[in-house]
């Protein structure tokens, strides 16, 4: 087995032993993702959009929470908030590779999320008749922000 395969085997086993807890986090991230995506249909540049800043903040909040719920089970033990890397400190696992695998999960999730947010934003802008290049930049900026948030959450240890 390669080191990466070992980490993936560990993650699969983790999903089995903490199945109920991971399921609850899955439900939370799906709900947050859906809410965040629906809210992001409100297009940047629409008439009255200055008054809708709170809507955009909500979208960022829900999607920010979705990222945390998505990767939390691989960073922290759900039961007691201990970092998994702390438990693995004396186990023969390359911690840098462990973080790289987690960043991989984050990227895969954000690519899917980014595509949905992008589509919703374009739909909203086209329906409102206010499409501009900002409707492309906004989802990209959002996903970049969420990626940085995820990286900070995964951490360096």
């Amino acid at each position, binding site marked *: *087995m390669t*080191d990466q395969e*070992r980490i993936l*085997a*560990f993650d699969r*086993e*983790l999903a089995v*032993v903490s199945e109920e807890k991971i399921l609850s986090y899955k439900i939370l991230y799906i709900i947050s993702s859906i809410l965040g995506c629906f809210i992001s249909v409100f297009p940047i540049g629409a008439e009255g959009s200055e008054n809708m800043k709170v809507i955009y903040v909500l979208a960022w909040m829900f999607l920010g929470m979705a990222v945390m719920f998505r990767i939390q089970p691989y960073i922290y*033990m759900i*039961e*007691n908030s*201990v970092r998994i890397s*702390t*438990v*693995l*400190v*004396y*186990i*023969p*696992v*390359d*911690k840098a590779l462990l973080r790289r695998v987690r960043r991989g999960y984050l990227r895969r999730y954000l690519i899917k999320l980014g595509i949905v947010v992008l589509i919703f934003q374009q739909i909203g802008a086209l329906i409102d008749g206010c499409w501009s290049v900002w409707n492309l930049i906004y989802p990209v900026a959002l996903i970049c922000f969420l990626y940085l948030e995820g990286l900070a959450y995964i951490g360096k240890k």
Partner: protein
Amino acid sequence: MLLELKDVCGAEKGFCLQNITFEVPEGYLVGLAGKNGAGKTTLLHYIADEKKRYTGSIRFSGEELHASHTKLMNKIAFVADETPFFKMYTGRQNAQLLAPFYEEWDWELFYQAAEEQSMSAGSGLKLDRPLAKLSRGEYLRFQMAFAIAHHTRLYLLDEVTGGMDPVFRREFFRLIHRILEKEDASVLMTTHIQEELEEKADYAGILEEGRLISFREAGQPL
């Protein structure tokens, strides 16, 4: 030599480890005694931690330890009260989670070791209780069974005998000697009870304020 430390130095809060040099031969029990704060646990952490926090050289089986630390940790086990495991899960679940990381994991050996460790009369290790609910002795027994299962060659035991009752202590050292005979392994243990080293260890060292002031065959005069 299984483990060789040469001029190991490290600066920690409040003290420095200075020029620690000694060797752990294969098949022997080496003990390090010293007062609290002498640097015993810090030295074991220097060996077990992935990040190199010292200057000098630590070689395991002839290889520089931190050049291939992940690979060499397959053969090193750190056993202590505070060794982190997934305490809300059972011993069996912990083994299922962590076994994939080891190149040589033997389930039969794990169950056999858990069964054989009847350090209190008649009771095998409770593998289906959460580790958080095990007694201190049971938790140590789990760690030893875990270590045996991945064919550990170097056991790092950090003050595990402190607070043990005499019966448990006797059984624990019997286990250690069985491991040394059977498993082609060595043990480096720390304690603050110097008399224990004189009785049980093959080699005894004394750490004081970060310095190794003595290292000799146990039983020889200081």
